[in-house]
């Protein structure tokens, strides 16, 4: 496409190259910093290899179980028509907004040694269950990832052309035949990608291992990095573990990017179901059972959070509200930062794509590198870079905002770049032919098409940042905290009722923030 375009203005160049430079610093830069610090020879002991083995093994187990449960759940969702189907599916999209630490509290309420299940078991004469350790970590991961897995796999189902089902109906293909000829081939294309994504997420697990790990036997690499830094002051070990983590994630992440289609957050299953199979009663019962079990598994912990948190919510100490304020400010700043970076990078990438398409593709890939980095690695690298000059505890909040912005950048970019590309293609030339200057062009031709993805991205980034418990643990002094950190501290001092109140507050604020920005993006935009 030989479309002559205006060259980048200097200010755009500065802005977007800063964004890229920042990303490179945060990903490769921090890893290299760590590498340079790893001068004291090979620090890894037998126990550290055990950590790596555990990390991989629990991620494999979690991903496998999540997928195995998600497949029948996704099939049930895509072939049964019932009231509230859309609600169930939207709730399935919620985990991205639900803070991990809140989920853990809910899980403990149900599965902990003093939770519902243990109470029940003790009533019938058994021992209470003990989930600290491998099983707890896997359980929490499965809880967290079934919604994601289901959503990814359901997308596969919605992508099947309706003609295929009509054909099957025409030709009299049975339900098992449909499974064989339509559904299983589709699954073969969708499942590997979904598995990889979940595997990747489970490898870089931190908060779950922190709260449910139970000891050296159940430590993930991220947690070990945290311990090496926080407990041991062993920077060399932290850096070596970080290197391993980064390599592992980079490989998995690159594979995942090539195999999967972009995650579609916005659309749901709104079209009508057109299937004529699965009418036999045993299929119906199976589907209903699967959906009930999965919904119970997911919603019981969430309900417990609401129920247990409602009363303590009103008697929370002042420090919680201060932390809430900190969290909101950090979240909003990091969200705007993230989207600002995404927009300037998109402009850059699009302009580049006309002249040097390969460069622009490379830029896109760099922006996804961040998915391979763990927040703790970034935090550790930044910590090493800044601590000769400034005490880490004074920059805890700005650092958190910055790292959160970078972590949500891939999601923002994934939504804004296509929207901007479309707007360019459809209205860019018109704007140029009318001789619009840059500001008018952006405001009239491009921005209206960006409002929805931008609104959604800001909302999502803000919600993700609210719930983050990563960098802040490395940098925070005891008197400065964000909401998740306060919650974790309360949980650790066994103030579980107070923690439940904070959990409810945290979830509510995240949802409210998301809703405000997403709604803002959808409001009518008419220039009369």
């Amino acid at each position, binding site marked *: 496409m030989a479309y002559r375009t205006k060259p980048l203005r200097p200010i755009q160049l500065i802005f977007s190259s800063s964004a890229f430079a920042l990303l490179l610093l945060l990903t490769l830069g921090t890893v290299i910093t760590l590498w340079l610090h790893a001068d004291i020879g090979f620090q890894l002991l037998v126990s550290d290899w055990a950590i790596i083995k555990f990390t991989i093994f629990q991620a494999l187990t979690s991903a496998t179980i999540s997928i195995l449960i998600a497949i029948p759940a996704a099939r049930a969702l895509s072939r049964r028509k019932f009231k509230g189907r859309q609600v169930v599916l939207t709730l399935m999209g919620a985990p991205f907004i639900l803070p991990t630490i809140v989920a853990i509290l809910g899980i403990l309420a149900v599965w902990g040694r003093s939770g519902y299940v243990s109470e029940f078991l003790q009533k019938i004469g058994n021992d209470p269950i003990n989930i600290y350790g491998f099983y707890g970590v896997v359980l929490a991961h499965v809880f967290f990832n079934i919604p994601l897995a289901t959503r990814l796999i359901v997308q596969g189902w919605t992508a099947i052309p309706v003609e295929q089902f009509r054909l099957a109906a025409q*030709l009299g293909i049975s339900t098992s035949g449909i499974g064989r*000829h339509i559904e299983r081939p589709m699954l073969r294309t969708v499942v590997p990608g979904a598995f990889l994504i979940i595997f990747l997420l489970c490898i870089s697990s931190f908060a779950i291992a922190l709260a449910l790990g139970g000891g050296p036997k159940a430590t993930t690499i991220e947690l070990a990095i945290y311990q090496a830094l926080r407990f041991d002051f062993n920077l060399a070990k932290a850096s070596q573990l970080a290197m391993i983590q980064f390599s592992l994630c980079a490989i998995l992440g690159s594979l995942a990017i090539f195999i999967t289609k972009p995650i579609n957050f916005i659309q749901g299953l709104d079209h009508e179901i057109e299937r004529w199979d699965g009418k036999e009663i045993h299929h119906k019962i199976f589907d209903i059972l699967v959906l009930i079990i999965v919904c119970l598994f997911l919603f019981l912990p969430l309900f417990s959070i609401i129920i247990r948190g409602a009363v303590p919510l009103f008697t929370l100490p002042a420090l919680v509200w201060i932390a809430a304020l900190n969290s909101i400010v950090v979240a909003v700043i990091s969200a705007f930062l993230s989207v600002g970076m995404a927009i300037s990078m998109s402009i850059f990438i699009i302009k580049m794509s006309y002249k040097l398409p390969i460069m622009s593709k490379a830029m896109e890939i760099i922006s996804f590198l961040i998915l391979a980095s763990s927040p703790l690695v970034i935090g550790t690298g930044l910590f090493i870079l800044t601590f000769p000059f400034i005490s880490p505890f004074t920059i805890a909040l700005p650092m958190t905002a910055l790292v959160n912005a970078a972590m949500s950048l891939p999601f923002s970019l994934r939504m804004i770049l296509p929207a901007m590309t479309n707007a360019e293609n459809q209205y860019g030339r018109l704007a140029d032919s009318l001789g619009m200057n840059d500001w008018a062009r952006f405001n009239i031709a491009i921005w209206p098409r960006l409002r929805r993805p931008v609104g959604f991205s800001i909302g999502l980034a803000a919600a993700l940042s609210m719930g983050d418990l990563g960098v802040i643990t490395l940098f925070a002094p005891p008197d400065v905290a964000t909401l998740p950190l306060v919650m974790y501290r309360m949980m650790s001092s066994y103030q579980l009722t107070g923690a439940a109140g904070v959990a409810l507050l945290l979830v509510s604020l995240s949802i409210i923030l998301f809703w405000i920005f997403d709604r803002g993006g959808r409001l009518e935009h008419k220039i009369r």
Partner: protein
Amino acid sequence: MSIKLDNVKISHGKFSLQADFEIEKGKKIALLGPSGGGKSTLLSAIAGFKTPDSGRIFFENTDITSTPPAKRPIALLFQNHNLFPHLSVRNNIALGITTTLKLSLKEIETIDKALLRVGLDGLGNKMPSELSGGQQQRVALARCLIRKQPILCLDEPFAALGPALKKEMLDLVQEIAETTNATLLMVTHQPDDASYITDQTILIADGKAHRPITTNKLFANPPAALAKYLGN
């Protein structure tokens, strides 16, 4: 009589279509009209994918209004997605015989003959992704041929093909319809396609499917709705 629609009303959201007509056996009918008029909806109703709000559908005096699609005597061809991408050409056609894909020697022979008939001799082992659009449609036609259903429905299957190729495909369709003595229902929004192979045309416009009228006569003396559509 082959197909009869008795006071059928189909609605789809805000849109509704009325149909009340009879089609003679062995005729070739075009369903013609503007986009969004309801042509595909009508075909879906006949094939059993949409249930009418009221009225009944008959096939040779049997009421098939509540018969499931698999049991209706119809072979259907869409504009695309007619083939299962992971099955070979031969297996895709074989689905017209048996869904278990276990074929006797005789059945394999039948399939190969069908392939020859549609001009795809020797391509039995190819995968759909290795074929062109036109070739894929021919494979689907071969399957229709094997099924030997009394009614053959086409939903704009050649819209994406160039004029010469389209003529070739329409010739093939005509041949197949005549050999199997099937009633042909073809949805199109191109008047030329209609006049090329069909005997009668059902005009679908303004929420109504009119009775079939001989194609040439219809074009010679178009009613107001059709005239507007043709731009006379």
